[in-house]
């Protein structure tokens, strides 16, 4: 059996998932990264994207936006402002997300980052729901 890390996915309202995983693919701020056991301690910001966790009982995917991931040698905790399991994702939900991001982008002083978040969500919409 491959060695595992403790994976936690937490949203502000509740803990969404907590189980042992062999690898966690994180949509990091600077690009996707995969955390496995023995990873150097890292804190990375999240961009809107798909968080994929390969656990001992199969793989699970979540759509996450905003927050950060805390990686250590033995565990990965993802604190996302919003996290939705891919199975529960609908076109309508994504549209709401995009509308929210557009609204936030309009007032955000850091225009590049905000526009990037919108673009990431658009890309998600194009890929996640095919």
């Amino acid at each position, binding site marked *: 059996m491959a060695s595992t890390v403790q994976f*936690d996915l*937490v*949203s*502000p*309202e*509740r*803990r969404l998932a907590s189980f042992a995983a062999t690898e966690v693919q994180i949509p*990091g*701020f*600077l690009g996707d*990264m995969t955390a496995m056991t023995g990873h*150097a*301690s*890292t*804190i*990375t*910001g999240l961009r809107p994207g798909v968080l994929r966790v390969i656990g001992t009982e199969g793989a699970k995917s979540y759509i996450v936006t*905003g*927050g*950060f991931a*805390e990686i*250590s040698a033995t565990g990965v*905790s993802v*604190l996302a*402002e919003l996290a939705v399991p891919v199975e529960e994702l609908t076109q309508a939900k994504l549209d709401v997300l995009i509308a929210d991001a557009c609204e936030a982008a309009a007032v955000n002083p850091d225009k590049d980052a905000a526009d990037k978040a919108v673009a990431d969500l658009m890309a998600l919409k194009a890929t996640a729901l095919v």
Partner: protein
Amino acid sequence: MPSLKDLKNKIASVKNTRKITKAMQMVSAAKLRRAQDAAVAARPFAERMTAVMTALAAGVGTGEGAPKLLAGNGKDQVHLLVVMTSERGLCGGFNSSIVKLARVRANELVAQGKTVKFLTVGKKGREQLRRDWGQAFIGHVDMSEVKRLGYANAQGVAREAMAAFEHGEADVVTIFYNRFQSVIAQIPTMKQVIPAKFEADATTALYDYEPSEEAILADLLPRSIATQIFTALLENGASEQGARMSAMDNATRNAGDMITKYTTIYNRSRQAAITKELIEIISGAEAL
């Protein structure tokens, strides 16, 4: 002396009131459990967030180049007090205790020559503060339509507070809420959220940061403020139900006492009336 019929009506009416307060108490008990569950469920996020923010804030420090939300804008002239109260009454001293704390703080600040502004969340606090501080209101967040408190509600409040800070309308933002301790004890609490304060912790682990410590800190600060407000709102929600529960419990007990008292009076007057009638009959018979 009220008539027997009056007493009977009175007893019936107090019995009805008791039914209502009893029902309200039970509703509050159910809501309290839900509110407590929500507060417990939100705890892991808030705890982790605070831990990481503490590490980040310690690393970046409050020197030059630090984000304004952390270091402040160099002034502390204008204070914004965010007073969180409930939308409904009948919850004992819940709202008054928050408002009282906010008033004391506001008077203190005014005595120091500072300017005080208010942002109210929930109708009840606004009503109580309006007379003395009506001219200092800069906004109000209406929660009457909110059935189930979500993170989005907290973000709304946080956005207003941060907008005031960014536009230079406030230099320091403090929130006022009731911390839930138990059903009978809620502690009025004030907490400064902008500039953000984190207790320094010497035992933080070393991390690599992506993209950089500063960028993550700047990205997370607004979220951390929203999280703090969310935690406060949840605590407040649980406190409100707790306060209402004990207030309604008291009311139910008082109604019970009242019913006993009036029933005694009713029985006495009834007996007195019977005795009077008997005496009348007997003295009538004797007179014959």
